[in-house]
């Protein structure tokens, strides 16, 4: 966790920034970053933020094929690493948010899931993220720590797919991110558990080298890492870096 608490409030004292900035951001950040973009534009008149939301890995592919972007905000350090391996970033990636797991159950908890231990019950329908994606990796870590062998019925490709199954009642329980449980509203109930603190996922952000508009890129990254940015992310359920 890099701490950049002394960053001055944007717009105050820093050189005027104007122009467009193109941000490639993980799809799970759609809501928060759209909000951040609007706030940034308001704070820096004359700037315009364009977003390209997609799966972190797909965005990494695009960036490695020379996509014209200024900033990359990834949902997993691994994808950020794919980019930094082939394309230079102007500043080292910094973590702007963290997320931890929670148990998601359908409204009313019909499968009567009480805690992680129920995930080992073969009689219950369980959905987990696939190991290849961040929430799956985190889940694996959690189960190892809790010494539980889960009996999943499906290994989903992302959190949203898991939540779809939870909200439709197809599964009795699942492990997802807190932020996602929060975003889904009242169709899904979240159950916190202790081990989650030990398997936290980092969200890194970095301005990109050869960015068409390096100054604004840097300003945007700073904005995300600022107090204002953190407030927006915190409201969505992210932990601070």
């Amino acid at each position, binding site marked *: 966790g890099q701490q950049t608490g002394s960053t001055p409030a944007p717009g105050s004292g820093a050189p005027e920034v104007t122009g467009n900035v193109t941000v490639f951001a993980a799809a799970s950040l759609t809501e928060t970053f759209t909000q951040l973009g609007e706030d940034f534009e308001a704070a820096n008149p004359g700037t315009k933020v364009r977003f390209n*939301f997609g799966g972190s890995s797909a965005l990494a592919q*695009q960036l490695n094929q020379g996509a014209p972007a200024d900033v990359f905000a990834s949902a997993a350090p691994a994808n950020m690493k794919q980019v930094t391996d082939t394309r230079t970033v102007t500043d080292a990636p910094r973590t702007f948010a963290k997320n931890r797991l929670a148990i998601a159950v359908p409204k009313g908890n019909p499968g009567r899931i009480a805690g992680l231990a129920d995930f080992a019950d073969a009689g219950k329908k369980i959905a987990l993220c696939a190991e290849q994606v961040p929430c799956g990796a985190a889940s694996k870590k959690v189960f190892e720590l809790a010494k539980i062998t889960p009996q999943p019925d499906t290994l989903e490709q992302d959190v949203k797919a898991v939540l779809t199954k939870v909200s439709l009642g197809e599964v009795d329980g699942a492990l997802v991110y807190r932020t996602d449980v929060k975003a889904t509203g009242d169709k899904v109930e979240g159950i916190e558990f202790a081990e989650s603190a030990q398997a936290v996922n980092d969200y890194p952000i970095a301005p990109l080298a050869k960015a068409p508009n390096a100054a604004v890129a840097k300003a945007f990254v700073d904005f995300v890492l600022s107090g204002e940015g953190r407030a927006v992310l915190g409201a969505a359920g992210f932990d601070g870096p």
Partner: protein
Amino acid sequence: MTRNRVRGRLPVVLVLPAVAGLAFLLVPLAGLLVKTPWTSLPTLLSAEVGEALRLSLICASLATVLCLVLGIPLAWLLARSGLPGRGFLRALVTVPLVLPPVVGGVALLLVLGRRGLIGEHLDAWFGISLPFTTAGVVVAEAFVAMPFLVISVEGALRAADPRYEEAAATLGASKWVTFRRVTLPSVLPGVVAGAVLCWARALGEFGATITFAGNFPGETTTMPLAVYLALETDPDAAIVLSVVLLLVSVGVLAGLRDRWISGPT
């Protein structure tokens, strides 16, 4: 006296599976319609959604035109030219179907991206860059949808009697005139079927588009991309958006007069 009689009963062995097939396709749709939270519709119908819908329709239609222009001749080549190795070519043509669309998008990036085999030169010599532009959406959709057109039209060409083309030749028609005025009209139902598939596939295309063209509202965010993003934030909204897309598409296709679709009478 009106005499309104069907020519005999329809055979049960055909009608039963037909109805089952129809049910199979339509009941999930009905389920979707039933569960659609229509109340959220008014709040959703923002300018952005309108934009995405407009973009979807335009790109799908342009992609279909591109597919028709390139795909019909290709189908003809496969069906009529007597080229050696046609069976293999035909199989290759289906590749974009089998390729997971995301990988298709990656393939397009590899070739037409700024660092791609061809894209590099396009960029250097002409300053043209397809990825992350509306043109890129059209290219991605056409890449994914073209096999439908080619394979349908080729099937229709193979079923058509080549002796009409011979008759046209004896009337002095060049291969091109014959193709345009005799072959093509006689396989029109097949071409329309192919174009319908192509358009519908392009309209629903997601993976290759988001990979190759990105997801920039107003520029490359088509409805399926909007649906994808909505799924991230508000699954109900995603369903409403899909249903909107679907109703528009059904409206367009149902509006195709039977005239366009029926064979010569």
